[in-house]
């Protein structure tokens, strides 16, 4: 019998290695795998490359990993959210590298990896500094910039319900990056609010089919994800 569940976040993240590339889902509080990230702080892996929309919040979860000096490089669209002071500090000291990419390009690059594509042309950023040095191509009279797939060794994602086959269901705005990141990493680890028996999720409410998921762990929500708005966004 297949059983992708593991009994603790500690066990779920045990195989993360120094230098690994990790995708981290979530946008604001919804869909942030905060318990997995806390477990990774305990676990100790460092020199990590993180792919995440923002720059982490304060001193816990992803913010905590940055604070602890465990992230070598961040690929993100908006690392200047209000709570990202740890990132700001390290970035200004030159202790963390940043690859800035527009949010839609970020998710599309991740999707390209998950979908087996070699790259794509997007109009976003043509003629701006974020396209500097990149290939520009005129297609049917419009200019596009070439973007490449983003892959990872691990994806940390968060869903509402999950079963032992790895099937996942999300509530409300939890899907955000989680659904796409689940397709683009070698090892996909899902933190869920609730483990349910196989068949409890209807065929139609499985948003991430188990084929994409390697480990599932049930964890009570980290209390700080309920905090009031901690992040801003660009205008």
């Amino acid at each position, binding site marked *: 019998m297949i059983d992708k569940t593991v009994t603790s976040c500690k066990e779920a993240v045990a195989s993360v290695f120094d230098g690994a590339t990790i995708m981290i889902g979530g*946008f*604001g*509080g*919804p*869909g942030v795998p905060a318990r997995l990230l806390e477990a990774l702080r305990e676990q100790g892996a460092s020199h990590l490359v993180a792919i995440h929309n923002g*720059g982490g919040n304060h001193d816990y979860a992803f913010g905590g990993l940055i604070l602890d000096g465990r992230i070598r490089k961040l690929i*993100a*669209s*908006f*690392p*200047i*959210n209000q709570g990202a002071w740890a*990132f*700001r500090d390290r*970035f*200004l000291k030159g202790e963390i590298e*940043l690859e*800035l*990419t*527009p*949010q*839609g*390009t970020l*998710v*599309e690059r991740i*999707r390209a990896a998950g979908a087996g594509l070699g790259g794509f042309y*997007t*109009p*976003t*950023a*043509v*003629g*701006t*500094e*974020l396209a500097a040095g990149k290939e520009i191509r005129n297609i049917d009279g419009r200019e596009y910039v070439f973007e490449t797939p983003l892959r990872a060794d691990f994806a940390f994602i968060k869903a*509402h319900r999950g079963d032992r086959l790895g099937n996942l269901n999300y*509530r*409300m*705005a*939890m*899907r*955000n*990056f*989680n*659904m*796409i990141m689940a397709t683009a990493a070698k090892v996909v680890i899902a933190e869920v609010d609730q483990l349910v028996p196989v068949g409890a999720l209807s065929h139609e409410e499985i*948003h991430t089919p188990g084929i994409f998921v390697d480990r599932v762990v049930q964890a009570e*929500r980290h209390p700080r*994800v*309920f905090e*009031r*708005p*901690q*992040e*801003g*966004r*660009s*205008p």
Partner: protein
Amino acid sequence: MTLTREGIAYRVARDLTEGSYVNLGVGIPSLVPAYLPSDREIFIHNENGVLGVGPLAAPGAEDPDLVSANKEFITLLPGASVFDHAISFSMIRGGHLTHAVMGAMEVAANGDLANWRVPGQKVPGVGGAMDLAFGVQNVWIAMTHVTNKGEPKILTRCSCPLTAPRCVRRIFTDIAVIDVTPDGLMLREVARGLEPEAVRARTGAPLRVADDCREMDVPAAFNGVQLTI
């Protein structure tokens, strides 16, 4: 008489027609929903995967899984939908949203927009601003006409890094409504009691005055400060 920030938001709201699908940025644009006419069905999109956003959640009634792109706890209207980031940015980049209303640091006469990075800003962040500026059918700007120092934000050419070239269609400020046309900037409306010349004096690019240029129709409650020409 200038408009207050709320007055600018009110004026933007007047131009959103029934059936608009709108992404609203932070700042003045975020004030727009309060002024949408109740008899028009208009759908607010948030790039984190929600379409059909309602009012902010009442204290104590927040759903932890439901925040805006600005990370505030929101509610959803009947008929609202949730989806992932890939679909959300397909809506944006694919031209499905009818309007994006954004703030700006600078707008150029040719529609160039600069609103993502102040020159010299040490930590950059772009979020969805570029995707919106490149993808949405109508990019509208809602901002004060001049900076805190009184310098024009509407210019012949942007000096800040561009968000997107030639993307802005309409500019709503505290003293004017200006369209970006193939022939340059066209003044459509001026704030109460102001002459077109007063707008021109505060604009850093050539400004033509539309034949039917008129006074903005905004309630007096939104009056800001008296301007000296």
